[in-house]
């Protein structure tokens, strides 16, 4: 009779180690981004995330922001295409009186009163408690009513099969999508990709922050300088502010 090694004890020890590791791992990672919203907790309505774009400092019309968004979220749009998804686009605005030309980035304005949310029959188009407007890709039926309702032309319907999506940015043919304010980054205490592309909020070209906190940089800028929202007359109360619009 040969002596077989006791595999069961070894397996038990390995499993116990793995279980311990799994149990500890989330706790360990929690320490790294101290400000991040822990997984499983709801977004708070005490926060209203917003964005300020300073056109006096923006020297490329938003090109770097568009490129960063595209790379981060895995979408590409051919020049002139009206079927490709565009989470953020550059818009050239000319004042006919004085011929001032400005090019600025335009994307989901993360409205406090979003028309896209009002019209969505299934509630797939939704506003998170912290003001981020999103599309739930599981309940979007692709009716495109939100695309028609958005005053900013910010929504895209996916016209073709897609491959190579990012795990943090689910996308698929037959559903509607738009800028998520890089919600996956915001939830781990990072700034949206476009903001980062301009050196982060500290540089002041694109400033991300909490509009509900009067002490935040973005709130101070909005309170101090001449800033404006796009089509404020519609009463949608966008969370995106522009400074230096001629």
């Amino acid at each position, binding site marked *: 009779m040969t002596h077989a090694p006791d595999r069961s004890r070894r397996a038990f020890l390995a499993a116990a180690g793995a279980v311990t590791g799994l149990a500890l791992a989330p706790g360990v990672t929690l320490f790294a981004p101290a400000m991040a919203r822990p997984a499983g907790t709801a977004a708070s309505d005490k926060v209203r995330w917003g964005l300020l774009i300073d056109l006096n400092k923006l020297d490329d019309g938003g090109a770097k922001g568009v490129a960063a968004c595209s790379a981060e979220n895995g979408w590409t*749009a051919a*020049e*002139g*295409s*009206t*079927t490709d*998804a*565009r989470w953020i*686009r*550059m*818009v*050239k*605005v*000319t*004042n*006919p009186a004085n011929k001032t030309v400005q090019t600025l980035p*335009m994307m989901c304005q993360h409205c406090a009163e979003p*028309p896209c*949310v*009002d*019209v*969505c*029959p*299934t*509630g*797939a188009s939704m506003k998170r408690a912290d003001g981020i407007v999103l599309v739930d890709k*599981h*309940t*979007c*039926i*692709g*009716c*495109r*009513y939100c*695309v*028609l*309702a*958005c*005053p*900013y*032309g910010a*929504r*895209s*319907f*996916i*016209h*073709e*099969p897609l491959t190579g999506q990012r795990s943090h940015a689910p996308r698929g*043919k*037959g*559903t*509607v999508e738009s800028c998520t304010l890089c919600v996956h980054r915001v939830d781990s205490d990072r700034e949206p990709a476009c903001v980062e592309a301009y050196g982060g909020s500290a540089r002041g070209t694109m400033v991300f922050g909490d509009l509900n906190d009067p002490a935040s940089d973005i709130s101070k800028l909005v309170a101090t300088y001449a800033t404006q929202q*796009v*089509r404020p*007359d*519609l009463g949608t109360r966008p969370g995106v502010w522009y400074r230096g619009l001629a």
Partner: protein
Amino acid sequence: MNTPRITYQRIKGESPAYLGWLGALGLLIVLGLASAWTMEHHGHVITGMSNRIVWGLPHVFAVFMIVAASGALNVASIASVFGQSAYKPLAPLSTLLALALLIGGLSVLVLDLGRPDRLIVAMTTYNFSSIFAWNIYLYVGFIAVGVVYLWMMLERRMNAYTKPVGVFAFIWRLALTTGTGSIFGFLVARQAWDAAIMAPMFIALSLAFGLAVFLVLTIAVSRQTERELGPVLLRRLARLLGIFAAVVLYFAAAQHLTNLYAAEHAAVERFILFEGGIYTALFWLGQIGIGGVVPLVLIFAPQLKSSAKTVMWAAIAVIIGGFAQLYVIIIGGQAFPQILFPGRIVESSFADGGIAAYAPGLPELGLGLGGVALALAIVTLAITVLAVLPTTMADTD
């Protein structure tokens, strides 16, 4: 009431003409399904639609049929709600047509969704601030109400309930068309749409389109089944169609004159009425000319006798005009750019500030025609199964 008892009967549906017609409709339905499958497989990129024109030709077909559905019910309403017994023999056919048109229209709408496989999500997950969610109830409810209404009319023991159910169906159809018009009226984002007039205007459209489709069907059935259509009844229906066509013209005038008065809307009106190319042509030639002037002349010109043939042409003109009008409203309303910065010139690689290009793709046409064929096939089959057609459509006295 001393009106003679109306008897209804089924048709046999065995003639070569009947079978040939049904076969042709079947072919179109297969074509529609193939179009839908192709669109789902490849995505909407194979259509003419884009992120600027997100609702294309299928919506024109679907909205026409849904709007016409509620209007088709009017003959029944006139009989049971307003007590005009002359219309009573045609009431069941009008209800059947209403149901068939709604089913045809909804099929097109659903198959044009990005994810028609998620229909169950639309039926189970609701956002009640959306007029679309309300419409799901209004449309499905209309089918239920219509079926009950038809039952009350066709089952002798239930005849006593025809009037209350008819009143309920009439109110329901007004709500339904209000809901359909409000799809467009409720949108602040589109210059051509954002107006309360959309809801009553769509009711007017429904009266005209529904009666027009009903007249074409009735005259065709009268010919094919050799049931003479009473000249007095035909004349009354034709005059009603003329009045409805005039009401549609009135609403078009009110809509555009109000917009022209407000300087803010001058640009969108200039686009639709003068510089919009295909949309301007469809507005003046299609909607106003063929859809308005032609039927009015055909019906009311004293030189023209309202023979079945003339009335048929008037009804066809209303239908063509109706398609033109919905094309102008739905597609033209999207083609005109959104106003991002009022008073500024706006340009982008997404064609911001410019007129959006659109040419319907073949699958869109196939899907739309398939829906029409489905509606007609439902009627064609139902009249062999249900005793819906009166034994005679002649005038009663």
